[in-house]
């Protein structure tokens, strides 16, 4: 069953009618091809106008869409010889962070990401993409492994944020995130990060302090969730849409602020309507970003990455 967002209701209704019409025609043998085609065009046009002017809050909802391709979908689509690696060597394996080795277009790479899961069972398994300290420590371990063997790193980020729990705090959530950011910045290998859905605060930047940062068109990247921001600054979580607007969290905003390098266009109606097209587009853009970095030595990569982050926000004006 397809999942529709609230603002997609008119499109959902139209598509429902088309379906109904087709069923009636199948049963009664009436030719409704022309009518169906007309309604299809109408639905397409509606989809196009709706998605052409999504508000920041609507984009947040699209970024969180349950049918949107997840980290493991990108890995399955693009990484051959995929060999997931587990554990932080100290306490546990955290399935919210996915990491491992494989080949991207023939080249051996290390891959990292946050995985939200795609059905109830896998969502629980991956803790809805919210990592504990072990997850960030696993990420750091894999970054260091990649650094030792000169493997480029690709990351796919999709998380509401780091998991806020008692145990997570007791085991040093903040330190784990800080060290993961440090590992990203220090890696003497090419590093391309892609925000594929939600880029939730510290839990996202822990895997995204990269040479090239890509964002999907309808993904969001923010220091706090719109709901969290609204409940603090407006004292009312229902003001989330207003907060989303103020936070400037869309791909377009981040590109304009020069905090990300490129925006990857999504298929009409969002990545969830045509996952295959979205997977393909991301693969191409990641390759385009990675390829020029392959010629650079470790010291140059690291120095440039530092300069890039040191410059961030210094001259940004919306």
């Amino acid at each position, binding site marked *: 069953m397809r999942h529709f967002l609230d603002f997609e209701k008119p499109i959902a209704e139209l598509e429902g009618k088309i379906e109904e019409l087709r069923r009636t025609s199948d049963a009664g043998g009436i030719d409704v091809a022309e009518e169906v085609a007309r309604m299809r065009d109408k639905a397409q046009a509606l989809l196009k106008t709706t998605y052409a002017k999504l508000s920041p809050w609507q984009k947040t909802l699209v970024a969180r869409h349950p049918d949107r391709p997840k980290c493991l979908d990108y890995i399955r689509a693009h990484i051959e010889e995929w060999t997931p690696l587990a554990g932080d060597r100290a306490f546990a394996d955290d399935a919210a962070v996915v990491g491992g080795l494989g080949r991207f277009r023939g080249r051996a790479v290390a891959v990292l990401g946050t995985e939200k899961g795609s059905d109830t069972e896998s969502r629980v398994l991956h803790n809805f993409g919210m990592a504990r300290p072990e997850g960030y420590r696993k990420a750091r371990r894999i970054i260091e492994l990649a650094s030792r063997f000169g493997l480029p790193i690709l990351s796919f980020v999709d998380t509401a944020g*780091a*998991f*806020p*729990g*008692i145990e*997570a*705090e*007791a*085991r*040093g*959530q*903040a*330190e784990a*995130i*800080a*060290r993961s*950011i*440090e590992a*990203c*910045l*220090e890696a003497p290998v090419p590093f391309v990060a892609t925000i594929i859905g939600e880029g939730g*605060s*510290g839990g996202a*930047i*822990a895997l995204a*302090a990269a040479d090239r940062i890509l964002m999907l068109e309808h993904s969001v*990247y*923010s*220091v*706090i969730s719109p709901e*969290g*921001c609204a409940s*603090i*600054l*407006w*004292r009312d979580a229902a003001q989330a849409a207003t*907060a989303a607007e*103020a*936070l*400037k*969290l869309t791909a377009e*905003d*981040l590109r304009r*602020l020069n*905090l990300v390098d490129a925006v990857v266009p999504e298929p009409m109606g969002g990545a969830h309507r045509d996952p295959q097209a979205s997977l393909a587009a991301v693969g191409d853009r990641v390759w385009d970003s990675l390829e020029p970095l392959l010629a650079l030595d470790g010291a140059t990569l690291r120095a440039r990455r*530092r*300069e890039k*982050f*040191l*410059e*961030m*926000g*210094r*001259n*940004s*004006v*919306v």
Partner: protein
Amino acid sequence: MNWISEWALPKIKTLFGAPREVPENLWHKCPACEQMIFHRDLERNLHVCTHCGHHMRVGARTRMDYTLDEGWQRIELPKAPQDPLRFRDQRRYVERLREAQAKAGQEDAVVVAHGSIEGNRVVAAAFEFSFLGGSMGAGVGEALVTAARLAVLQDAPLIVFTASGGARMQEGAISLMQMPRTVIATRMVKEAGLPFIVVLCDPTTGGVTASFAMLGDIQIAEPGAMIGFAGARVIEQTVREKLPEGFQRAEYLLEHGILDLVVKRGEMRATLARLIGLLRTPERVVAPPPAEPVAEPLPALPAPEGPAVPA
């Protein structure tokens, strides 16, 4: 991110005429034990309660006075973008910012200074919690990067006293990017072979904890300081459990292996001086000369420039 409840609300309550219990503020009430302390006693005791030992919050410049030898110099910081998002909630961020600047007499939430501790030359940075909850935006990031560059330039250890609600929401993703920026600052200091010492003060949470503040060569905290990543309320709502006694306090972090030391304010100077000595002077001079007080103030230095960025 709870500076509103921690700081702004009490302020507002004060403004709107909450009954003033103490005439002319000669007496202070300890927020922990609620006993009254005469202001001179409190100052003499470095704003630590004379009854229960509670460490009260102090401002950035007071912190410098308590920690550094006389004659420390404040460093002028490079300008950071003001209100890059033109953020507005119930008020304009730029108004909040200007108000905080006027009240604090400083551009942003961090003061950077150079001076010495018992004769050991240091660069120090201290957060002013009363400045928008010590939140970290571009200005704070700039201050820490400047402090790191200055430490390298002066071949001096960098000591940072934190007190922050976390990222400054009103600067959106720009505030998020201060996390990697400040991590880079710690790398500069460490690569120059210099100690980077963090002193976590009450409260330190969110993006500040999850970046430079957890990367010290030595991690110190003041007694009772609240230190954590996620806010207690958020955790409670997420896990639907009661938080353990003393959760996210300095002593709890020490017990969980996250800190090296919990040090009382009165012992901070001596501890820092000893640590710097141990890290930087491998062989002690047999007869150490008495530490000379700095007679003349150190010359003010301009903020160091960053490397030119290729176009």
